[in-house]
């Protein structure tokens, strides 16, 4: 087990913009979080809070016209002997350059939300798996095929020799996601970014995939960055949690603290809005008032202030709060906890 306090992936003040004709969308507005080696970080937030954009910024695969405007992404690369080596700032690399391309897939892998459209419809699964392997490992085609078959077996796909020759439309949703995971892990990455990996699946398959991810994490000893809007998945999988709202991190803590000791009003509201089995019949479902602001219409001051039950006039609509430590390992970005 690697040293947990050593830096593995540190994102500091990441700012990502999308300059469009109608205006610039600030997708990530100064987000900071850490991933520890071998541990799982869960990033949770509503649609549009910037979690996917942040993840894609790490891998530098932003859709045009996205661009990283500010911030650092410090990542500890693997050295030649396979051990953890030096730390580099990924924002300084050319997105299309050799360095970044060798990291992509080789050291940091990405699993996408929609496995159907994330596989090419005109190439076999085997072709796409082997391509990933051949890109990062120095093996022959025959060896690559062996590795691919082995990966398919590890993710629990039966009859891999048949599947490897099939196309993505011939596999069921669950099998496709497993194949996607196989492809991601085929080069033994040290970090796996899973972007809503189970959102497109039914609940039973969801449970299976999550269990698979947990087992693979133990087997491969890799870190996982799990992006989701589902607090249940977070509770099950994450060691540490980061809550994002409108491009900023509002709270960051170990998973138990988030669930039992939430500090930020948004986190509290999220937890309250989970329907409970024990609630009485005809009890109204709690929800957060208002809706997410339009990206061109961001509120002044704290981004959450129009919907915040703890809104303090004169403070919350004027300045922006900073991420401060409230307890060890527990940070909140809220005026309720600032200024000492």
């Amino acid at each position, binding site marked *: 087990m690697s040293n947990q306090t050593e830096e593995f992936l540190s994102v500091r003040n990441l700012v990502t913009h999308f300059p469009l004709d109608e205006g610039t969308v600030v997708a990530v507005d100064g987000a900071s979080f850490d991933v520890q080696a071998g541990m799982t970080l869960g990033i949770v937030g509503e649609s549009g809070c910037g979690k996917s954009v942040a993840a894609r910024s790490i891998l530098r695969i932003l859709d045009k016209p996205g661009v990283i405007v500010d911030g650092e992404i410090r990542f500890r690369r693997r050295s030649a002997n396979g051990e953890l080596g030096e730390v580099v700032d990924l924002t300084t690399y050319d997105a299309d350059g050799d360095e970044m391309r060798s990291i992509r897939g080789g050291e940091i892998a990405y699993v996408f939300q929609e496995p159907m459209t994330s596989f090419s419809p005109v190439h076999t699964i085997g072709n796409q798996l082997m391509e*990933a392997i051949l890109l990062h490992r120095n093996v022959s085609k025959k060896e690559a095929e062996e590795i691919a078959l082995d990966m398919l077996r590890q993710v629990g796909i039966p009859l891999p020799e048949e599947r490897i020759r099939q196309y993505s*439309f011939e596999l069921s949703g669950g099998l496709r996601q497993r194949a996607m995971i196989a492809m991601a892990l085929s080069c033994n990455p040290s970090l796996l970014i899973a972007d809503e990996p189970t959102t497109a699946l039914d609940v039973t398959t969801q449970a299976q995939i999550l269990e698979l991810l947990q087992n693979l994490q133990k087997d491969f000893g890799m870190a996982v960055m799990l992006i989701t809007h589902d607090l249940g998945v977070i509770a099950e999988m994450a060691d540490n949690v980061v809550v994002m709202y409108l491009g900023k991190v509002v709270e960051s803590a170990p998973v138990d603290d988030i669930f039992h000791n939430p500090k930020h009003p948004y986190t509290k509201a999220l937890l309250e809005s989970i329907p409970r089995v024990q609630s009485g019949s005809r009890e109204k479902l709690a929800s957060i008032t208002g809706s997410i602001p339009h990206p061109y219409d961001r509120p002044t001051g704290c981004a959450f202030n129009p919907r915040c039950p703890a809104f303090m006039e004169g403070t919350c609509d004027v300045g922006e709060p900073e991420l401060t430590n409230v307890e060890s390992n527990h940070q909140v970005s809220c005026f309720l906890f600032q200024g000492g």
Partner: protein
Amino acid sequence: MLGFIIRRLLLSLLTIFAVSVISFAIIQLPPGDYVSTYIAQLLTSGEVIDETEAANLRAQYGLDSPFPVQYYKWVSSAIQGDFGLSMEYQRPVGDVIGDRLALTAALAFVSIVFTWVLAIPIGVYSAVKQYSVGDYVFTFIGFLGLAIPNFLLALVLLYFGFVYLDANIGGLFSPGMVDQPYGPAKVWDLLTHLWLPSLILAVAGTAQLIRVLRANMLDELRKPYVVTARAKGLGEWRVVTKYPLRVAMNPLMSTVGYLLPLLVSGSIIVSIVMSLPTVGPMLLRSLLAQDMFLAGTIIMLIGVMTVIGTFISDLLLAWIDPRIRVENS
């Protein structure tokens, strides 16, 4: 896959049948029949045919039988290569057509090659570098290519060639080569003359193909599997050519088959303008002179040739597109 081939083959046969019927109907369209036109022609040179001879001729050609019988007679002799007699040339139609049909096919084929060779790189470039200067330039040229009818383009080019180069750039062979038998030298001569009319023909088709390819590529470039490929660490060039291009090309493949009839149609008119020894000018002359056996045969042969070409391209499509292969196996 086999089922697909058989279905396409049946459809092709049905189409050939339809073409032959339509061609024969065209033969029959002008008022009067073959014999009365023949008699009129003879009259102008002073010969006269009496009633019994005329009746015999009619019986011989089956002209007093109903339409289906005549059709059957025509088709059965056509299959054996006897397409009837050309009024104008007073020779069997087959002889008159000669190698023109093959030259028409060569023209169409080279045009298809040009179309694809030009359209694919430009289409991909336009999509990948959307809104760049190059994209706008190509889009504009593409629109011009679509708008200018190919025979006008041919006319304009001929004009410039005539006025500024003092050359007649029509024709498919150099003067010395026309009567030579086919050999490597003649084929080379043909190619050096073929490129210009092929290019003119290809212009409209290329413009169309570029637009479709660009639109398809733009759609595909936004799709998640492209991001997956990038996330694997694949280089940008490979990402574009291996994935979205393959997918974007699929709908194009199915249009290749229909490119052929359009090209053959276009070649008719361009050939007329540029005086090429293909089927076009001959068809026009025969229609204007009401030399119906010649005209009808040309129409049928063009139709058959096109259907065969379309069938071959369908086979190619089935071979390339895995979805058809898998679904029908």
